[in-house]
């Protein structure tokens, strides 16, 4: 009895979670004017690739996609390198002033000056309206900093000692010894920072004005607001094109979700540990 109810309820949850993604997918393969009529719930009623063709032929969308890919790749790479370098510096067990350093880091983790003063700082640094505003403020992730510190502490000291004897300096040790043995950590950080970059939208909406720096998320907000006005989509449907702003919006959403589904198996491998640490430290 209890089992039946439990399985039944979980099936409902499964459906409610998975079906929206499936519905997006079929809608993106459905002709735009047909989608407005409704009725295609499990299979496209008028199959077409027009939506994707339009999306990938539109310069505006391609630029947005390019900016999003760039910020994801560069943002994750610089974030991982910078955060782990600082973490390596902090990981020494007998580091002088260690407690002071940690207080500074943890205080910055718990308290913030709020958005407005932050904006003033970005403005004074000349970061507004530049690609750097996506990358530089996200280079040091204090949450991963703490995880990386505890990871580096577990690395046996003998590895470093032998390199010291060979006359290597700290930067060489970090680069040649620490990073290669920390691949699981680096992969986790890269995946999470990458997903964060890919999904970020606020900075693209408010810290940037240049049309060539808009991200995929920004363009999605734009088109969602546009297709929220019924006249728009109906007018488009009546026109010659089968692609409406609604069908284009759905297509953009699929393009935004697809990479996350692709890295999902890898994300899954690591994130349980991540959330455990996060819940205690956050």
């Amino acid at each position, binding site marked *: 009895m209890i089992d039946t109810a439990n399985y039944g309820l979980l099936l409902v949850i499964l459906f409610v979670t998975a079906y929206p993604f499936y519905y997006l997918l079929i809608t993106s393969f459905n002709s735009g004017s047909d989608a407005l009529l409704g009725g295609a719930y499990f299979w496209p009623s008028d199959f077409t690739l027009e939506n994707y063709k339009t999306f990938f032929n539109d310069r505006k969308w391609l630029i947005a996609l390019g900016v999003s890919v760039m910020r994801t790749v560069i943002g994750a790479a610089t974030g991982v390198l910078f955060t782990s370098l600082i973490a390596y*510096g902090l990981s020494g067990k007998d580091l002088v002033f260690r407690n002071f350093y940690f207080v500074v880091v943890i205080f910055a983790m718990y308290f*913030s000056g709020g958005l407005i003063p932050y904006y003033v700082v970005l403005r004074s640094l000349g970061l507004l309206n530049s690609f750097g505003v996506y990358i530089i403020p996200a280079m040091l992730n204090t949450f991963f900093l703490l995880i990386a510190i505890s990871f580096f502490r577990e690395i046996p000291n003998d590895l470093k000692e032998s390199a010291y004897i060979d006359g290597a300096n700290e930067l060489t040790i970090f680069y040649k010894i620490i990073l290669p043995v920390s691949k699981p950590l680096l992969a986790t950080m890269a995946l999470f920072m990458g997903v964060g970059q890919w999904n970020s939208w606020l900075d693209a909406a408010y810290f940037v004005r240049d049309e060539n720096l808009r991200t995929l998320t920004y363009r999605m907000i734009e088109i969602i607001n546009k297709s929220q006005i019924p006249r728009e989509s109906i007018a488009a449907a009546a026109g010659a094109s089968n692609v409406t702003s609604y069908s284009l919006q759905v297509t953009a959403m699929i393009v935004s979700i697809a990479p996350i589904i692709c890295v999902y198996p890898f994300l899954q491998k690591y994130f349980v540990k991540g959330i455990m640490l996060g819940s205690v430290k956050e």
Partner: protein
Amino acid sequence: MEAETIKAEMAINRSSVWKRFKKQRSAHFFVWIGLMYLFVFAYTPMFGILMAFKDYSIVTGIKGIFTSEWVGFRYFIEFYNEYKFYNIVRNTLALSFLKVVFTFPVPILFAIMLNEVKHLPFKRVVQTVSYLPHFISWVVVLGLAFTFFSSHVGLVNQVLLAWGWIEDPLPILTGSSYFWGLAVGSAMWKEAGWWAIIFLAAMAGINPALYEAAQIDGAGRLARIWHITLPGIKGTVVVVLILTIGSILGGGLVGSNFEQAYLMGNANNNDTSEIVQTYAFKVGLAQGRYSYAAAIDLVQSIISVILIFSSNYIAKRFSGSGLF
């Protein structure tokens, strides 16, 4: 005599500290790069809070934060006298309260339900799918809300109309009375599966012998959940609850009040969707009233800090464990 020994010891300590420091100088160099970074991106904005008490103009840059004229609590009073003040505060509190009430227990219930599933592949499929929404952007969630709930293309409205349950499409995205439900529902949809992970992990740590013993003693399914599973995850629940209450103004664990109010709020549902953060954001960045916006933001930060310290204190008193 004694003083001299202490002095001598201190001198030795000092020199050994200096020696260690010199030996570790490259490590310190890396650390100092990080500290400088934090100084610029985390600590300078904290000093920037001063602008809430000053007549700050953006053209004066960072220096202006210190040099502009003091105006005391002028902007705080201005916010209090703002005609939307009541609505904004009510929405912030209502949204935060509703979200905690609903999004805190749901992951626990979901984790218990999954924990009771003996069919492992089924459990794995449900769990894997349940935290997928955590990894997608709020912008995509906005798009999904539009796809399912809008009056003209929304699937839910289409189906309800087709079945004859409603005469006119429900204005879920544009009606004031729907916004809180929409916000709570979408937050739950996006994050419940993710937060269930931590409770499932806690449940995995419960000794199976306890369940066997209870079963021999004749405890039923629900009795075992009540007397073994729930006490077994009590510590985790307390930690999560403190975090939730501390971040309540941001939307609790799911922390999404701003995203939702900003993305799903519109001119039609503004009287229930405008919250302190979105209001501060709009008057600050869109209207350029920086001091005023900083003052509004500061009110919310202070309340949040008070909440996290008091919830931690209460948790310590009652359960003997807190965060700090």
